[in-house]
C-alpha cells in the first residue's frame, strides 16, 4: 500500500527514523552502561512509537479513501435516481429524504460488508492497539523502576485466581455430593 505522499515513500521514512536512532544512540558498554542504558531504551521506544504512528497514518488513509469512495458512490446513485424522477426536485420532500437514505445505505452497506473494508478497519484498529501496547510497555518499565507491580504481573495473579475459583467450585461440588450421599 503506497502513501499519498509520493515524495517520501515508506522505506525512506523508516530510514530517517533509523538514522535518527543511530545518531542519538549513545555507547552503553563499560563505564557508559549506567548513564546511557535507560536513555537508549527510551529512545528506541520513542522511535518505535513514531513508526507505529506512521503506519497508522498509512492505514488510516486507506480506510478514509474507502469511505470517501462509498460517499461518492452514494452521491452518484442519488443523482441518477433523482434524474429519473422529475417529482424529486423539491429537496424538502419526504420522498427525496427517503431517496437520500436509500442511496447512502446502499453504498455504505456494500462497503461495510466487503472483505476489503473489514481488513482496512482491522489494520487501523490494530495500529491503535500497537500504540497502546507501546505506551503500556513504557509505563511498565517505569513501574518496575518504582518497585510497583506491573500489569503483566497482575495479569498472572488474575489468571491464577480464576483457576483457583474453578478448582474451589469443583471441590465444593464434590463435597456437597458426598454430604448428600
Amino acid at each position, binding site marked *: 500500500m503506497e502513501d499519498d505522499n509520493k515524495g517520501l515513500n515508506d522505506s525512506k521514512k523508516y530510514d530517517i527514523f533509523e538514522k535518527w536512532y543511530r545518531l542519538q544512540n549513545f555507547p552503553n558498554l563499560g563505564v557508559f552502561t549506567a548513564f546511557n542504558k535507560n536513555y537508549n531504551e527510551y529512545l528506541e521506544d520513542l522511535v518505535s512509537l513514531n513508526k507505529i504512528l506512521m503506519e497508522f497514518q498509512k492505514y488510516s488513509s486507506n480506510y478514509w479513501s474507502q469511505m470517501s469512495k462509498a460517499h461518492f458512490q452514494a452521491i452518484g446513485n442519488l443523482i441518477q435516481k433523482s434524474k429519473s424522477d422529475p417529482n424529486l426536485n423539491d429537496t424538502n420532500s419526504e420522498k427525496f429524504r427517503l431517496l437520500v437514505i436509500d442511496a447512502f445505505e446502499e453504498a455504505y452497506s456494500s462497503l*461495510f460488508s466487503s472483505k476489503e473494508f*473489514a481488513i482496512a*478497519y*482491522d489494520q487501523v484498529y*490494530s495500529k491503535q*492497539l500497537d500504540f*497502546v501496547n507501546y505506551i503500556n510497555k513504557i509505563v511498565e518499565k517505569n513501574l518496575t523502576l518504582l518497585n510497583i507491580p506491573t500489569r503483566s504481573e497482575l*495479569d498472572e495473579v*488474575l489468571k491464577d485466581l*480464576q483457576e483457583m475459583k474453578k478448582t474451589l467450585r469443583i471441590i465444593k461440588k464434590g463435597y456437597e455430593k458426598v454430604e448428600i450421599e
Partner: protein
Amino acid sequence: MTTQDKNTQKRNSVDFSKVAKTLELLSRGNHISVGDTPNDIVSETRLYRLLHYRSPVKRVSHTPILVVYALVNRSYILDLQQNKSWIRHLLMQGFDIYLLDWKSPTRMDKYVTFDDYVNCYIDDCVEIVQNSNSADKITLHGYCMGSSMSAMYTTLHQEKIRNLVTIAPVIDTSKDTSVIANISRQMDIDKLVSSIGNLPPEKLYEVYSILKPFKQGVNKYFNLIANIDNESFVQNFLRIEKWLYDTPPIAGETIRQWINDIYKKNLLFKNQFQLGKASVDLKKINVPLLNIVAEEDHLVSPECSVPLNEAVSSEDRRLIRFHTGHVGLIASSYSQNNVLPKVGQWLKTRSN
C-alpha cells in the same frame, strides 16, 4: 409574501419546534423505566443475577423455564415494556420463568471463559431452578449468544434439560453474511485482548453503528422528529435507544474464544469447540428443540442459525421462521401476536 411562501414558513416553523422538542427529549430520555415485571433475585454473584418472575396467573406448566440472555447489551430487552414483554407474555401463559441476567465483567474478570459461563454459572443456575421447584429437568431457553451457550450447555448436561428453545442462535458462522461476521473474521482479537483486556463497549457501539448506518442510524431520528407528539412512539423509541447503548464489556478470554473459535474457525458447528477439557458435540443433543429465526435478522443471519436443526440428533425438532428482525423477534407487537403464541403452544405440550 405569497401564499406559497407563507406555507413554507409555517411548515418550517412547525419542523423546528419538533426538532427542539426532540433535542430536549434526547437530553433527558435516559431515565425511562425498563424491566418492570415484578421479580425476586434468587441468587447473585459478581457476574450474574438469577431472577425469578412472580406469576400473575395460576401456573399450568410443571417444567420451569430458565432464560439465558446474551453477553451483549442488557437482558431487559426481554421485558422492555408491559405490552411488548417476552417474559410477561410467557408468564401470562402460565409458565414459571427464571432469567439469567449477566452482570458487567470488570478487569478482574479478564480470564473468565465460556467454560466458566456454561459449566459454572449456567450450571449453578440450572441447579438452583431444579432445587427450587423440585424439578428433575428444566426448559433451557436462550436468546442470540445465550442460545449458543444454551446449546453448548445441553450437549454436556443433557440429563438436566427437558426442552431446548433457541432464538437466533449463532451456529454455522461460515454462512453468516452479517456485517458483524465480516468484521469478526478479520479482527485481530488476540492483540485486542492482550492490549486492553476486556472488549470495551465502545468497540461494540462502533460495530452497531455500521450495521444499518442510514436506514436505522440516521432515519430513526427523522422518524422520531416526525412522531415526537406520539407518546407511545416516543416511549418505545427511548426504551430501544436506551437498550442499544447499554452494553457491558465482554470478558477478554470469552470474546477471544467467540471470535477465534466460533466466528473464524467455526468450531461450534464443526463439533470441535472446547469448554475446558470437554468437547461440545451438537450431535449429542436429543431433547426436543425449538429453533426460532428471524428472516430479516441483520445481526445473526438466518442461514447461520438454521443449521442447528440439522446438527442435533433430536427426533422432536422444529424450526420456525418469522418475517421480522433480530430485536423485532422478541420485543415488538409482531412478536406478541405472532411469535409468542407459537412458542407457548410448543412449550405447553412438552412441559408437563
